[in-house]
């Protein structure tokens, strides 16, 4: 038994002239939630589709749960669950009918089928919705049903492609609680998202940008390893100061958060807060406060995707 659930080396996928995924290397350990964080079009969905054998890679090797993909994709099907970005169960069937269908497709025996469906209905709070058509469910309910359906056959590995994009924060919270329940039972989960708060919950993250992996590690590691300093600036004219700061060569970016500016300063500055306050004063703006702050995941994301841009 391998310790890793997913291994991929030099994974590439091109559609015509578009390079959707560029030489991606991945190592996903078992019983962990591994996140793909990236903006739309960063290659998250393409990467997931290649890992579960739906797309043939242009180049690279994939090994998932010991199976060589895409060659042994059919054998893998029984051991993985895949939740698509768009709700993909049958909207004109009821909750119960959808679950029955999935159980039969995975050829669960009669007794096990009833047992698992019963448990899923209870665990995912679908009890009152059993006779309701899937098309009439709310975003959160649909998500719970989809998760229930793709875990009926107790997969070892779960692929979730932006599972909560149509879900309100409260349902998102309970959805993630359910994911941790699955991990506690030994399931490995690969989830793609563009929400920072979701990314923060993952055990490990890969930040994707334009098809390339630009940073990898646990959220804490990523935050600690950020190659920049975050300086919080309070001023009366945040818009104009922000624009001015972005012109400076030692400043990577500036973003307004409420009344303050969150400024990312290049790590080659020995005293970043002084460098920032000096330039603000020199340009004749008033400055109320200027202090160093702990970097967040969003800063990591901005720094990582920015490095790409300058590198190209």
């Amino acid at each position: 038994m391998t310790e890793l659930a997913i291994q991929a080396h030099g994974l590439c996928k091109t559609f015509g002239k578009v390079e959707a995924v560029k030489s991606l290397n991945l190592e996903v350990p078992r019983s962990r939630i591994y996140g793909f964080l990236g903006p739309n079009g960063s290659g998250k969905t393409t990467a997931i589709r290649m890992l579960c054998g739906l797309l043939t890679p242009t180049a690279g090797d994939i090994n998932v749960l010991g199976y060589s993909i895409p060659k042994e994709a059919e054998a893998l099907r029984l051991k993985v669950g895949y939740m698509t970005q768009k709700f993909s169960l049958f909207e004109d069937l009821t909750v119960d009918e959808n679950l029955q269908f999935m159980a039969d497709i995975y050829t669960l025996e009669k007794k096990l089928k009833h047992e698992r469906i019963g448990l899923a209905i209870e665990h995912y709070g679908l009890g009152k919705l059993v006779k309701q058509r899937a098309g009439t469910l709310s975003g959160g309910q649909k998500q719970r049903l989809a998760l229930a359906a793709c875990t009926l056959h107790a997969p070892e590995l779960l692929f979730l492609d932006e599972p909560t994009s149509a879900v309100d924060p409260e349902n998102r919270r309970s959805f993630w609680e359910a994911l941790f329940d699955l991990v506690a039972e030994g399931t490995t989960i690969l989830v793609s998202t563009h929400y920072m708060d979701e990314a923060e919950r993952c055990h490990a993250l890969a930040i994707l940008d334009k098809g390339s992996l630009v940073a990898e590690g646990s959220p804490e590691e990523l935050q600690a390893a950020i190659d920049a300093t975050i300086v919080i600036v309070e001023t009366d004219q945040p818009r104009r100061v922000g624009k001015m700061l972005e012109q400076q060569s030692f400043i990577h970016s500036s973003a307004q958060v409420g009344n303050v500016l969150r400024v990312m300063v290049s790590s080659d500055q020995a005293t970043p807060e002084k460098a920032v306050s000096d330039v603000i004063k020199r340009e004749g703006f008033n400055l109320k406060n200027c202090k160093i702050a702990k970097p967040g995941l969003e800063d990591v994301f901005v720094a990582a995707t920015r490095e790409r841009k300058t590198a190209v």
Partner: protein
Amino acid sequence: MKSLQRILAIVVKEVRQLRRDRLTFGMIVGIPVLQLIMFGYAINMDVRHLDAAIADMSGTSASRQMVMDMSESQIINVIEQVSSVEELEHLMRQGKISVGIYIPPDFDRRLHQANRAAAQLLVDGSDTVVQGAAAQLAQVASQVRTSPYNDRPPVMELRTYYNPERRSPVNTVPGLVGVILTMTMILFTAVAIVRERERGNLEMLITTPVRTSELMLAKIIPYVFIGLIQVSLVLLLGHFLFHVPMAGSLLNIYAITLVFIVANLALGLVISTLVSTQFQAMQLSFFILLPSILLSGFMFPFAGMPRPAQMIAEVLPLTHFIRLIRGVMLRGASLLELSAELLVLCGFIGVFMTLAILRFSKRLD
């Protein structure tokens, strides 16, 4: 066993979805009934009871005899007797009659003159079918001519087999079974897979252990029963509404339609793997339906078509089915006598199913 469970799961799902799709469900019954009534009554190639007027200026026994012969042919329905050509022309312009017969005062004398026409047939040429009917009528009239060659047998003796009354529905209804099945069956499966692709269901389905052959088979099974329901409807209506005779056994009829239904469903599956939207699937289905109706022998006799048209027709399932169903229903032929056509249809099933399974990929690229 596992395969069976998966196939059954999809079949049950299809039936449930179908039951909830009211419009499609209505079409299963609606299309055959409406088509049968429309085609049965409207496609009437042998025209009867054309309204006619007669201007008999001669009034002899020979002229009365001719008018009687013409009326008996049932082609015309004499609604008025007038006394001049002008009146006939007037009635035709008004659209009250399609045919006018003018018998001149010297009709008897003209009859004996081989080089002159004895009477005039005025025909409304705006309808080609009426024109054709009039030609038939002229034949009837020619029998009255008492020429020096009277002792010879008539130019042509007309005898019609299998449909002695020359009623269109007898020919149309069996063919119509095929046309309706072509129309509905191809479309059902052509849309079946594309619809799931459009709704995103397919991306989920192909990540499950279901095999391509299982998916294809399960997509066909429910519609086979729907096809059989439609056939029964058409046959029942054909029998009670149009009194279409049934020379062969009912079992044989169902046997050949079953083969034809599966061939069409398989063809639909092939279409489904070729297109990416339901709209395209519909267009492609009609692209096959139209030549099927025109070239299969359903509307025009196969023998009269030019060679290229016949070659196209040979690759259409409907062409072979028309030969089969007419053979069984009207001539009472046995399946053994028609085995060649039956084999062709089975061949179609094999080719279409293989194509569909090969073309359908459990991949997205």
